[in-house]
C-alpha cells in the first residue's frame, strides 16, 4: 500500500529545492545586511529539511546525522555573524557592562 511514498518524498524534496532557489533571490538582492542574514538562516533550515527528506528518498539513514550537524552549525553561524557585525570583532565577552564599554570603544574609534 505504501509503495508510492518515495514519490511523495521526491516531490517534497523538489519543492524544497524550489523554495531554496526562491530564497536565493532575497539572499542576493536583499537591501540590508539583516535581510541577507535572514535569508541565510532560512536557507539553512530548508537545507536541513532537504537532507532529511532526501535520505528517505535514497533510503540511506546516514543523512539525518548530517542534517543534525547542519542544524547546530546553522544556528551558531547566524549568531556569530550577528555578533561580528554588531561589535566588529568576535572576541568580545557578552557580559553587559563589558560589552557596553567595548561598544563605546568601537563607536569612538
Amino acid at each position, binding site marked *: 500500500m505504501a509503495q508510492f511514498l518515495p514519490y511523495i518524498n521526491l516531490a*517534497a524534496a523538489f519543492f524544497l529545492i524550489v523554495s531554496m532557489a526562491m530564497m536565493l533571490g532575497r539572499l542576493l538582492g536583499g537591501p540590508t545586511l539583516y535581510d541577507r542574514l535572514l535569508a541565510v538562516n532560512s536557507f539553512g533550515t530548508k537545507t536541513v529539511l532537504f537532507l532529511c527528506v532526501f535520505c528517505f528518498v535514497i533510503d540511506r539513514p546516514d543523512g539525518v546525522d548530517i542534517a543534525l550537524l547542519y542544524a547546530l552549525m546553522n544556528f551558531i553561524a547566524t549568531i556569530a555573524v550577528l555578533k561580528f557585525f554588531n561589535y566588529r570583532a568576535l572576541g568580545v565577552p557578552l557580559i553587559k557592562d563589558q560589552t557596553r564599554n567595548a561598544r563605546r570603544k568601537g563607536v569612538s574609534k
Partner: protein
Amino acid sequence: MIDLILASSTEVKSAAIHIDWLSLITTVASVVSIFAGLFFVLAGTLGVLRLPDFYTRLHAAGMTDTLGAELILLGLILQSGFSQMSLKLLIVGFFLFITSPTATHAVAHAAYKAGLKPKLGKYKAPEIDGDVK
C-alpha cells in the same frame, strides 16, 4: 480517493477482506503532514520575497519555517516508524524548534538596535529602555 485506495488494497489481498488500518492511517497522516509542511515552507518563502519591510519578512520566515519544518519532520517520523531513525529525526526537530525562534529573535533585536526603522504608518515604535545609543 480513500475508497479507491481501499478497493485496490482489497483487490491485492483478493479473498481476505483484511485491511491494515494502522498502516493506512499512518501513511495518510504522513502524506497530509508533509504536504501541509510544504505549503507552510513555500508560503514563508513567498512572504520573504514579496513583503515590503524587513520586519514583516522576518515574521513570514520565522513563523512559517518553524511550523513547516516541524510538520515535514513529523511526516518523516510517521513514515520511519519506531526506530533509531525516528529518534534522530525527533532530535533534529527539537533543535530546530529551539534554535529557529532564537535566531529569528536575535536577528530582529540586532536589526532594531542597529537602527533599522520599520515601516509603521501612523504608529510609533517603542523605545528600548536601558540602551545606550
